[in-house]
């Protein structure tokens, strides 16, 4: 191989010495966005090992398959409406959502705590509030993707089946609002439980316990109250578990039919209390996370 003789000799030298970086530094907001997208991708196992993709992808599929089946049934049988309301879908699949949250919330926060990576973040332009907001937003977005995707399948399916457009669009919008609220609430509670312990296993157990024990207790006591003929109690008992809270809010404001015993969901009056409790819990989760990370600075 002959090299062109006209080339100056120094172009042949590979400079492997240290090079300074003179490019742009995009600062805090960019770092926060980067942390958000990295965490959101991580919630579905993207950018992580193949092993960590398995569970979130299976759960995502499990969420979507019933919606696809319903659409297929609706199209095939030429039904007048979908077999399930949009707002009921998340209630119907709450176990899957709970499982996803239990698996991914500890992944999102306890790794940094356990491996003590937090000081590496806080010694950079990014601050505590950026870290907490990015993690919270990523978890909530992941839950929203998980819960809104089947609703989208239902909506597209209903349009393909030429169901009533106005009715379907309204239902879809109500469903989206409901799962958005659910995502914020669940993400907050899940992250708080997970951030309390640096151990991932404990985090998973704590989230599952929070979701199942509260729901189990509330629905049992509601059933007893209903059988003893006190629907007033049924109405208020729903305040004590995350999923029944969401159920209460959407019954009151989003035209959902209640899944409480006897469909004794709260009306607009008690519904305001439900909504305030949900918003309070979302803000409370954020405040607890902020406190939690104040202690783990450098």
């Amino acid at each position, binding site marked *: 191989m002959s090299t062109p003789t006209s080339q100056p000799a120094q172009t042949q030298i590979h400079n492997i010495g240290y090079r300074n*970086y003179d490019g742009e*530094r995009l*600062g805090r907001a960019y770092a926060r966005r980067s942390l958000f997208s990295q965490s959101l991708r991580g919630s579905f196992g993207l950018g992580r090992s193949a092993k960590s993709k398995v569970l979130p992808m299976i759960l995502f599929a499990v969420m979507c398959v019933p919606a696809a089946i319903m659409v297929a049934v609706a199209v095939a049988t030429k039904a007048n409406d979908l077999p399930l309301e949009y707002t009921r879908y998340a209630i119907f699949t709450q176990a899957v959502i709970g499982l996803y949250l239990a698996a991914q919330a500890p992944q999102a926060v306890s*790794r940094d705590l356990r491996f003590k*990576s937090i*000081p*590496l973040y806080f010694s*950079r332009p990014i601050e505590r509030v950026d870290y907490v907001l990015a993690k919270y937003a990523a978890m909530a977005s992941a839950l929203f993707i998980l819960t809104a995707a089947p609703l989208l399948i239902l909506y597209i399916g209903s349009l393909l089946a030429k169901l009533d457009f106005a009715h379907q669009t309204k239902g879809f919008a109500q469903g989206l609002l409901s799962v958005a609220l659910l995502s914020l609430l669940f993400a907050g509670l899940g992250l708080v439980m997970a951030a309390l312990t640096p151990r991932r296993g404990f985090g998973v157990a704590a989230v599952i316990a929070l979701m199942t024990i509260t729901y189990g207790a509330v629905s049992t006591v509601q059933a007893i109250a209903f059988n003893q003929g006190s629907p007033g109690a049924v109405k208020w008992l729903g305040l004590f578990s995350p999923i029944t809270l969401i159920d209460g809010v959407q019954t009151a404001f989003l035209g959902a039919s209640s899944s409480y015993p006897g469909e004794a969901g709260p009306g607009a009056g008690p519904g305001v209390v439900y909504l305030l409790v949900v918003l309070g819990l979302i803000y409370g989760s954020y405040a607890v996370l902020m406190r939690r990370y104040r202690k783990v600075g450098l």
Partner: protein
Amino acid sequence: MARATTFENVTVIVTESLSKRFPRVTALDRLSLDIGPGVTGLVGANGAGKSTMIKILLGLSPATEGRAEVLGMDVATSGAAIRERVGYMPEHDCLPPDVSATEFVVHMARMSGLPPTAARERTADTLRHVGLYEERYRPIGGYSTGMKQRVKLAQALVHDPQLVLLDEPTNGLDPVGRDEMLGLIRRIHTDFGISVLVTSHLLGELERTCDHVVVIDGGKLLRSSSTSDFTQTTATLAVEVTDSDTHPDGAQAVRDKLAAAGVTLHEGLEHGLPGAGHILLVEATGEETYDLVRDTVADLGLGLVRMEQRRHHIAEVFRSEAQDQKQEANAL
């Protein structure tokens, strides 16, 4: 290297009667420092206030009183701007085992504000400079302690800071790893043009690495001076001579002669070690001491095996300093 000249004559870290008091302890007590470019060692026993100092310098913990500036920026008001231009390597483990060094350092580069492409390029460069090659694609969990320390160093350097704060970077390393790390720290300044503040509780390793050493104890400044001041205030000559038939212990004969001539002889650190008796440590007061040693050895008819300048170990300086303090305390 352009930057090293730009920052010449500029102080990198300034503190003025900086204090940090917690309800029970005073971590820093009216500490005033003036640290220029180069490699500076911050020495102190555990609990001397080194980590508190780093937290304050990063603008993460407010000082109780006094003020501090890093790269000309006030830590109380410009914390974020400082953290963009400063790198930090913590003392403890801080690496997730399930990702590769490349992935981790890229992520950290983005957290420092580097755009995605620049983050990847800088990561590849930096990992190569700290001495990680093919292994950088494997999960960190399988790395040796030395390799992990290099990854920690890489994440502190990836955004090309003007100053890095290294908290006990040689902790847990074996002697070879320690030497490599110290060499790397030296290169951060000489080759990369980045100033370094390195903490350690070992004085010995800093004298080879640092231009300047600051010693704090109980949050108070014990001493701050350049390493050459520490080690070259008085030159010590190490002299080794042969024995002869007339003088079976040549070293002792020379010692007696020199002592008679009024020359101060030291008991070195090596005292008590095998073979130490054959090495004389002579305090050199000037050119004439060299001549005197040469003539003395020649007069006795002994062979001069070696005569070399020996630097004081920083440890000796502190030992005497601590003794001075003790004496002062006793006097009071």
